């Protein structure tokens, strides 16, 4: 890519300038997004009719304890000032402590986000690896059995509630057949065999050569990952089908066929390459959705992820945790956006 830019731009200087411009643009987008997110979440958190002090001291605390905590939280200050104080601390990486777990919010996120990341990544991989070929097949064999099958699969993915499917999955594959392990991330007996480094259990156990623990973790993650994978597959295959149908109707496809190229080459090298550009957005969006944490899946599978963490915090008026979590998700969204932008450039010369 760099050489392409050089050839067109005619020199290092302009290439450098354009990358600097891109980086600056990205930083500005990231900062504005995060500031906006922080402001909206912060003010919503302060106007909800829940007293955050009760969340900390409980219902029974005597008046003086209540007052002391209220002052410690700075709740007697004007809202704008409270927000300013929050921002100043946040910039230094201090997002405050969570009420529920009493840990610094960053520590909590460092514990919960990897769990979600692990599940979402595996789910998306399943969605992409199975969803794209299925979508292509459906488009190529339009109206055939496989096409109908993909459409029904997609429809079901949209309409079946995930908690139902999750429980049924547990009932069949865990309780009845015993193929996979039950709710949880890893068996307690294995959980002390490795030291959490990345907090991504599959990675940690594999890196430390704890293969028993690794396989136990695999047998725990496979069902929820397939479940999320199915929902992402339903979306991705449907979109792939429609993008491919669009491409296959284009003149260049006819031209390629006329040239005598093999059908495989026409589909995989030409049509898919063009369909891939919008598809990347679809995949990025679906991945981002999973990263937000699938609260229901996490609840059913007792998966200690970010979705459960934020929901639980929200229900307990634990606003520091909610804010911290929201900012992490916001950053993830912006980063995914950046990655899909870069991929666009790689795949589509017109955007370079």
């Amino acid at each position, binding site marked *: 890519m760099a050489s392409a830019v050089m050839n067109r731009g005619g020199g290092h200087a302009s290439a450098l300038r354009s990358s600097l411009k891109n980086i600056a643009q990205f930083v500005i987008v990231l900062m504005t997004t995060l500031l906006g997110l922080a402001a909206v979440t912060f003010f919503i958190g302060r106007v909800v*009719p*829940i*007293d955050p002090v*009760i*969340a900390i*001291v*409980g*219902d*029974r*605390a*005597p*008046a*003086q*304890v209540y007052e*002391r905590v209220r002052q410690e939280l700075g709740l007697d200050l004007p809202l704008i000032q409270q927000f300013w104080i929050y921002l100043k601390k946040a910039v230094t990486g201090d997002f405050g402590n969570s*009420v*529920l*777990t*009493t840990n610094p919010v960053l520590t*909590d996120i460092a*514990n919960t986000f990897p769990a979600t990341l692990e599940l979402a990544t595996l789910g998306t991989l399943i969605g992409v690896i*199975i969803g794209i*070929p299925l979508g292509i*097949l459906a488009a*190529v*064999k339009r109206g*055939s059995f*496989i096409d109908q099958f993909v459409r029904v699969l997609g429809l079901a993915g949209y309409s079946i509630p995930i908690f139902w499917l999750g*429980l049924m999955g*547990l*009932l069949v*594959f*865990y*309780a009845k057949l*015993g*193929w*996979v*392990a*039950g*709710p*949880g*991330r890893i068996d*307690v007996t294995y959980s*002390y065999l490795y030291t959490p480094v990345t907090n991504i259990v599959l990675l940690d156990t594999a890196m430390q050569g704890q293969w*028993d623990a690794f*396989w*136990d973790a*695999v*047998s725990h993650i*496979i069902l929820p990952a397939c479940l999320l994978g199915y929902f992402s597959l339903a979306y991705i295959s449907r979109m792939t089908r429609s993008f491919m149908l669009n491409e296959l109707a284009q003149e260049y496809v006819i031209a390629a066929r006329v040239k005598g190229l093999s059908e495989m080459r026409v589909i995989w090298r030409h049509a898919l390459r063009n369909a891939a550009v919008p598809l990347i957005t679809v995949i990025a969006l679906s991945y981002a959705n999973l990263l937000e944490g699938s609260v229901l899946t996490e*609840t*059913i*599978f*007792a998966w*200690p992820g970010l979705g*459960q*963490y934020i929901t*639980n915090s929200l*229900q*307990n008026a634990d606003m520091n945790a909610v804010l911290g979590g929201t900012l992490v998700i916001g950053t993830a969204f912006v980063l995914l956006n950046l990655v899909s932008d870069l991929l666009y450039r790689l795949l589509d010369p017109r955007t370079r």
Partner: protein
Amino acid sequence: MKNLPKFILSAAMVAAMATSFSAVKAATPPDTLVQAWQSDDIISLDPAEVFEFSASEIMGNTYERLVSYDIKDVSKITGQVAESWTVSPDGKTFTFKLKPNKKFASGSNITAEDVVYSLHRAVSLDKSPAFILGQFGLTKDNVKDKIKQTGPLELTVEVDKAYAPTLVLYCLGNSVASIVEKKVLVQNEKDGDWGYNWLKTKYAGSGPYIMRDWKANEVLVLERNPNYEKPTPLARVIFRHIKETASQRLLLEKGDIDVARNLNPEEVTAVSKNPDIKIQSAPKGTVYYLGLNQKNPNLAKPEVRQALKYLVDYQAIADTIMKYKGDVHQNFLPKGYLGAETSNPYKLDVAKAKELLAKAGLKDGFSVTMDTRSTAEITGVAQAMQQTFAQAGIKLEILPMDSKQALTKYRARQHDIYIGNWGSDYQDPNSNADTFAANDDNSDNAKAKPLAWRNAWDPGPLTAKTRAAVMERDGEKRAQMYKELQKSVLDDGPFVIFLQQTEVAAVRKNVDNFVLGPSFSDNDVSQAKKN
């Protein structure tokens, strides 16, 4: 169609991969008890701060206190770390002698210095449960003079008034008064925090189990304390946080856990048919009630308050929505407490209620709202009441809301009717009398917010009577005083108390001596074993 076989092949591969993961164990290890529970209420494991159900249970199994009570008959108070105690003639000074051979999990001896330190610490940290000790006139500033070491194994506790001794003892048996090891906490102290930031996730006690590890919202592990006088039969107890009750049921039936703690009534019924599972239950010190805000002119009428007590189908609620979870109970003291009244005079009686409403000038009923926490059971109960209220022409509007939101509104006295539950803070009847039957200041900006205040109810002479009951040192007379207080609140108070909570657990048959006690800190696994 030529690509279809590829798809089938890949599907088959996925299935084959799944089958190979059958390294799934079917039973838990024989020396380990695994429980599934909802423990997202745990915010700290420092006994000076613990005030929530789940953490109280951990405190009960990992720490010891000066005194304790028999969970089968809570009126029997026994020494736990204390060997004996005496009360001075003026009733204000309690002298405790400690058992000589008690040890902390670390192996060090428990001395009076540790006990004094622990009590100073709890009062000085002044966390949520500190009022349980603070109510005896103990403050950060005077506690060093009031609680003193008088020998290697002897200490005195001085209270400000001659309270009923059992009240003081019950409070010293509460988890806030748990004994922590001074040496360990001094080592971990930072900036004069009494080791609080360390202890909230760690352990420094002497109970049957050691708290080994806690991962919030994931798992909590207890391990046998080798220095405990009567070592536990089990090496380990693991509490897994499983929020979803249906998942708890699956794990239990599969044998991956031994105890499921939060099954709903249908799930309890279903697993009770499983020959490998038994159901255990115990009444708890929590009562369910409606709070009728006296700022609402209709609810302020005594006839209306009574009419509402006749408009609840107590038995139906206990038999259906709250099956396994509660028994009909109409007085503010839970069964098992000193002086607890067990008669339940009110029954659903629409005619009687209509008569009372007519007397109040509300022959055609009225409209009223109920702040309802949106949990399945509370919503269910509220809906049942909506139906029976309607029979007498009262239009009840249910306002569903989050529990913290409902509580915020309740504490601001902005509700009409609040449906809630109240659990006793300690085993003495004063814990509930103080909140249901006493209100020192009914003004809007009062400092204390007992339930009577929250419902803007001035109980008149009952406040003085509640205060007097605390000072009565004759047990029988004291019990009588509480009976009278309960009667007054039952007849005229702004509370429709309808249920006492029962805790239910589904336990695998091979588990013995799993005990559910009257309070959450009494749920005891110290003698549990597996066959």
